[in-house]
């Protein structure tokens, strides 16, 4: 009984320690991602990305895998076996527009990307968080409404990191199944600002049209919307 008590206590202690490590792992990774400053500037002097590393359209995951490798060190002495790491970024790339001047209202647009990695910090192509859907990154980012959104305006960003670790523990020697620990961390990209949003003009082009039709006796106009 004492042995069981000791083992049980150690098991629980180790579980919490692992969970704490995993929490630190996720948080550290999120903060490291959030501190990635944009370095890619194209020939025109235009910052090419508007979120920490990859975008939905282009970019490289090299930086993320490096950060992952660094964060894995923080897991020691626990091995990262069975670990999965998912990082997603949501950036508001176009602010919602109210109906104005005959132009229909448009919702905000978001650029989201997700990179999933395994215990070797190799990308897997999985989408553990998912960028869309009720539990996806965008939903997590914008919450239930404007005031509860972490993405409060053009260029705002949220980084979501979800780390999972298979924890077999001592019981794992007996049981075939291992417990899965999951920790989620969020961070706001430190350099998030509307100035980092690309391909957004300061003045959206109005969509109103001016139409004329003329005959031999005059012209009629319509201000189309």
């Amino acid at each position, binding site marked *: *009984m004492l042995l069981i*008590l000791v083992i049980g*206590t150690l098991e*629980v*202690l180790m579980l*919490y320690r692992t*969970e*704490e490590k995993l*929490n*630190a792992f996720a*948080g550290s990774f*999120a*903060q490291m991602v*959030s501190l990635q*400053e944009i370095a890619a500037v194209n020939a*025109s*002097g235009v*910052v090419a990305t508007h979120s920490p590393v990859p975008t939905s359209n282009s970019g490289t995951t090299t930086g993320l895998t490096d950060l992952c490798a660094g964060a894995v060190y923080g897991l020691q002495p626990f091995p990262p076996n069975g670990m999965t790491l998912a990082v997603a970024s949501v950036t508001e790339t176009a602010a919602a527009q109210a109906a104005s*001047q*005959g132009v229909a209202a448009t919702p905000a647009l978001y650029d989201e990307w997700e990179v999933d990695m395994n215990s070797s910090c190799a990308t897997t192509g999985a989408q553990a968080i998912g960028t869309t859907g009720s539990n996806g990154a965008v939903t997590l980012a914008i919450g239930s409404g404007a005031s*509860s*959104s*972490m993405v*409060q*305006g053009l260029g*705002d960003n949220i980084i*979501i990191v979800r780390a999972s670790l298979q924890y077999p523990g001592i019981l794992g020697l007996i049981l075939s199944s291992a417990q899965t620990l999951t*920790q*989620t*961390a*969020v*961070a*706001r*990209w*430190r*350099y*998030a*600002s*509307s*100035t980092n*949003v*690309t391909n*957004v*003009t*300061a*003045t*959206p*082009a109005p969509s109103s049209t*001016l*139409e*004329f039709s*003329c005959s*031999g*006796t*005059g*012209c*009629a*106009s319509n*201000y*189309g919307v």
Partner: protein
Amino acid sequence: MMLRLLHRILKDRRAATAVIIALMTTPLVISGGAAVDFSRLSAARSQLQYAVDAAALAGAGAYQVNKDGTVAYNVAATAFSTASGAVRYYAAVSSTVATSCNPSGVPNVTCGTSSASNGTTVNCPATTIYCVQVSAHAVLQNSLLAIVIPSEALNVTSVAQSTGTNSVGAGNFHHVGVGYGSDLSAIYAYAVPTDSAGNPEYNNVPAPNSYCANASFGPIQYEPTTAAANGVSTCNYVLIGENSGGSGTGTIAFQQSDPLGFTFVNYSGGTITSGTSDLDTTSFNAASGVVTNTGSATHFTGELYVTNAGVTQYFPTGEVVGGTTLYANCPAHNLYGSINAYPNANNNLVPYQDSINTYASGWELLGYPPTHGTNHYLLPFLGPATSITAGSATLTVRAICPQWPTTGTTIAATTSFSPSSLPAGYTPVTNMSGSFPTASNVAVYSTYYPDQTYASGSGVFPPAVAACTPATSSADSGVTPASDNPWWGWSPPNASAMDPGGAGENPGGAALTNCTATKLNSGATAITATQNSLQTSKYNDCAFIIQPLGTNVPSNGGVPDLPDYYTYSVSPSAFAAGTTGNPSNIISSQTAPLYGMTPVYDGIGNSNAAGYVPASVTITGMGPYTITEPPAYGRDAYPPEDTSHQCYNPQANGINGSLLPGSDQPNNDSPVTPIDPVANPELGAVLCNSNPPPAYALFWNDMGAWAQPPHYNDDLGYANAVTEFTCPTPGNPGTSGPPALIY
């Protein structure tokens, strides 16, 4: 007996472990439980600390960018809610968020609206600008330890601060001046001041700071200056361009959300048009009364007020110095300033400090205050997806504008328009049936960049807002009634050109009409303050158009292009919708008398389009069309002439604008609520907060230059200048200030 019993018990080893266990169970359980619960507590503290750290950082970052305490609060609160999700599984968590903002000593830093802070104490360092504190309280119900201690309480706090101001003004302006005309003037950009809530104050022109007292900043160097704000080490105005040409770069400090306004500075206040070259006002020597002709000018036209030894002299028409003839055609105070000047130590005239009147563009230019009612919405250059295939190029027609007739024009008031309800603030484009002249053409404004095709709705050119503002056509030779016609709302242009050689205000010329410059004290040798005022000119030259060009502006040799304007004229009956025509259908002589078919002037520094003439014209979509209007005065970088016949003089209409401190006109707030000049950038202000940075074409004219019909001195396209202004590539919190950090 009792002793024996006791001795036997002590000697009995059976069930000894049970006793020990019985005795140790409670301490063991408590110890084990404590270990478990304390580990759990430790894990919870770790998670909770991370949550408050992440929330505080997120809030401080958002505060820095948005300059709004409520936004910072929302971001921090939501970030905490998300980040603390794991703790909430086993603990009751509550949090408080508080924000702090200390903008003192930092220019144009505002705190925005107050946050809905539910915190009471913010432990922020005094040096920080934006600060967010997030505190969390969690209660964990113990498990095994609950026998002794039912629950544990956790309290964690994190304070994140931002000392950066997120200024984006470190970049360079790329402006390319196109000098034309010789009435000297310049355009400056400045950050529109904001009130404590961060709202732009368009009617507030900041005083130049001490760094502006430098020749490189142009005439504003003569303005009274104030001490620069903390952290500012450059002039708070940047010289965008002068009509004498040239290009350059400059820097200005402003916040990300600050609109940029433009001020217009009139150097000379009078037309100084030379025969062969321009004269510089600084070449005048007041002490000797000699106007030194530093160039090869054979004459110039202008009017000068020279203040020397406390006496202001007026150099009227006919002044001849060294073979140079002075003509006058300006009012004492035109719309944007006058030439009062005084000699410096070298006896060179420099502008008198009160004479360089600069106006806030968002408030003043194109009328005062800028409203759709007074400033006439520039119709968007977005029409139906109509393309014109011309030769190997495809032109996209963006707007179709009426062309006023050349004779017999009768413009009636608005009778009706369709649709019946327009968005608020719009000046309706009326139904012209019944009032529009019969023998009319319809202008289709198109823009073209050499070798590039822009699809409707997706191209960056032509610009979103352009100059489809049909006032009086230059082709009508001024026969359009000079009136405040309610149709377009535009005032008519100057109906008579300068006619030098006569006497008085309009020497030898025809009777002056609205836009013609007039002056007071003609021929006087000295003027007083009371005399130094406008006469009765109801309209005067207007000055400024801001034309958004979008981003990714085509460039040639690194020099951004300006929109090319060229159009063609066809008879209204030449085409039906969807027909394909050829040049024989083009009636170029009707509405493009100077340029007709042949000249297509390219943008600045770009010769690719020279001589471009479509071999055929295919029109699809609604028709018939007339494609007409050459660029103004031979430069297709200028807006079409119809654009530029806009006259409005707020001073003459009893409205005084916002002036630089020390200027000689008072402020006079208008009861009319102006429209947002950022939302309507053609009216005076722009935002430089996007990436790629947007570009704008700035067209301006200060006062009528001598002109030949059909070009008039209020023709913005004729004179004085246009320049391309590209916002600086915006910075981010990392370039102009550190990102938010945990304090």
